């Protein structure tokens, strides 16, 4: 503190009078240095709150998790364990099941939750009427508290009393067990049910973003294509999609990263996340189970190891995706 005081004293004496001084210190070294130090100090004052929160709640936990994944804690004694935690989780059959389920969810969500919003946006963009109403409709589910929406879907999905089966029964169609379907094939009805609920809740955001992007496509392109005799699908393939490819690409990556972290949907719909025979157990659900739900000692170490694995998988995916889709030339 003394240095700064001395510096500013010195700079104050050597500074030209206030009215001709530039805000960032005068042309002379003393004035500039003093002002620079003061500016830095006050800047750090402004930064302090956010940086402290980042340090405590983002950077430190990140480092802590990596370290914890290489440790083991027994009865309060922590010791280094090398790759033992990773070894343990790789040998847990539930681990592989969780990854398979998560992959299943991500792929289904790509088909339902990625294509549907895009084509919905194209459809909405063509309509000249009721646009405001339809936009509000599409986004309404996004605003619901997730617990409300998912409990509602759980209620609809009930095999005996749920609305869906009652309607199907009333019109004579076969009913389904929806989320409680026992199948463990790669595409299980249970997971499809989860994806339907998740898409309903979330597609509004993506639809509106696509809609805004579609409105930026120059109309002349469509006119020119029509003069050349292009049909509807041809126009979509050759104009609409290429023109929006940046947004499409970015949202694809964001969606894959987000869906691989699915937790709430399966957790509330199946009341715990596992489903019949664990067929809706996701990776994040497994992290939660390792950390908080195992009987006996909570196993933060396994949870940390799994968290690091998840992070690495997503990092490899994002890095690879950005590399493959990078602008060439």
């Amino acid at each position, binding site marked *: 503190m003394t240095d700064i005081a001395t510096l500013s004293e010195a700079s104050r004496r050597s500074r030209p009078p206030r009215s001709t001084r530039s805000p960032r210190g005068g042309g002379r070294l003393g004035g500039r240095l003093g002002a620079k130090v003061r500016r830095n100090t006050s800047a750090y004052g402004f930064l302090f709150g956010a940086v402290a929160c980042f340090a405590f709640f*983002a950077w430190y936990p990140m480092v802590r998790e990596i370290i914890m994944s290489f440790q083991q804690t027994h009865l309060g004694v922590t010791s280094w364990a090398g790759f033992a935690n990773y070894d343990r989780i790789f040998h847990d059959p539930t681990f592989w099941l969780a990854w398979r389920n998560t992959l299943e969810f991500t792929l289904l969500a790509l088909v339902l939750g990625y294509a549907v919003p895009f084509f919905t946006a194209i459809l909405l963009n063509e309509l000249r009427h009721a646009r405001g109403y339809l936009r509000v409709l599409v986004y309404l589910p996004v605003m619901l508290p997730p617990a409300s929406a998912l409990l509602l879907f759980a209620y609809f999905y009930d095999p005996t009393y749920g609305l869906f089966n009652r309607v199907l029964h009333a019109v004579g169609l076969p009913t389904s067990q929806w989320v409680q379907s026992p199948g463990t094939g790669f595409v299980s009805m249970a997971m499809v049910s989860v994806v339907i609920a998740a898409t309903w809740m979330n597609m509004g955001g993506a639809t509106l973003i696509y809609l805004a992007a579609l409105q930026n496509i120059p*109309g002349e392109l469509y*006119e020119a294509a029509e003069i050349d005799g292009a049909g509807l699908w041809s126009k979509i393939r050759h104009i609409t999609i290429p023109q929006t490819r940046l947004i499409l690409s970015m949202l694809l990556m964001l969606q894959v990263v987000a869906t691989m972290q699915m937790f709430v949907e399966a957790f509330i719909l199946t009341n715990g996340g596992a489903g019949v025979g664990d067929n809706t157990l996701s990776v994040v659900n497994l992290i939660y189970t390792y950390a908080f739900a195992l009987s006996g000692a909570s196993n933060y170490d396994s949870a940390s190891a799994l968290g690091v694995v998840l992070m690495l998988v997503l990092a490899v995916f994002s890095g690879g995706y950005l590399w493959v889709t990078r602008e060439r030339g």
Partner: protein
Amino acid sequence: MAATPSTTQSTRTLISSSALSRARGKLIYRIVLTLVIVVFTLVFIGPMYFLFSDGLKTTQEAVQVPPTIIPAHPHPATFVHAWDEVGIARLLFNTLYYAFGALAFQLVFDVSAAYALSKLRPVFGNVIFAAMLATLMIPATVLVVPQYITVADLPILHLNLIGSPEAIWLPSVANAFSIFLLKRFFDSIPGEIVDAAAIDGASRGRILRSIVLPISRPILGVVSIFAVVAVWKDFLWPLLVEAGYSPSHETLNVGIWQAAQSVPQNVVIAASAIAALPTLVFFLIFQRNILSGLTAGGLKG
């Protein structure tokens, strides 16, 4: 790529206006439009309609086959029952308290940080900003377990935040996306405005308060909406830090889910309906701001 608007038509889309003004085009358009409106209303409002109407039904009517669309004997007592038993008033208050507290913390800390990074540019500012952006690469769920452990025993300070509102407020400040949006906006404020104020003798805090903030209303609106919605929709984190320790501190999502374990289903549905009301009303009032903020944040120029 020339983007001059056509002088004869407003923005042209896949299907031209002239195609629509022909008789056959008009007919197809009207059919499609009606279909879309009907289907969308069914798909998006339908579930919500049942959310509210099934809460009014008695238990027997709620499970009838075929299902009734309008409750034959409305039974509003279920809603009262839900309100009391699930303690919705308390849950709502808690969630609002957490959401607006988080908003306040974010506005104070994140705006100051973005201002410093953008206008004051301290030494190592770039490093700090890069470290903040790096957190965007880390999936949120990966951090949940170590964040929980940290919150239970803060390093250096040795505080246990579990069960207190700060456990939700403080981590929400570490929002790199907000800082990114704010900094980008502040960067676009011409330096001359800030310099002029500085020459006139304004302190940096004064510049922030009186010059930067008033101009920044649009981006502050966007950041505020994101902040409130994030807390409102969060489930896993409040489940870990607020539930089970003191039931009166739970958020709406967690409280309703917990109630679902022990309370009959139609009461749970009624509770969900009541819980959904504030957000729906809020959305319907502020929809224009929310929808434009969404696209502003989502598109990059």
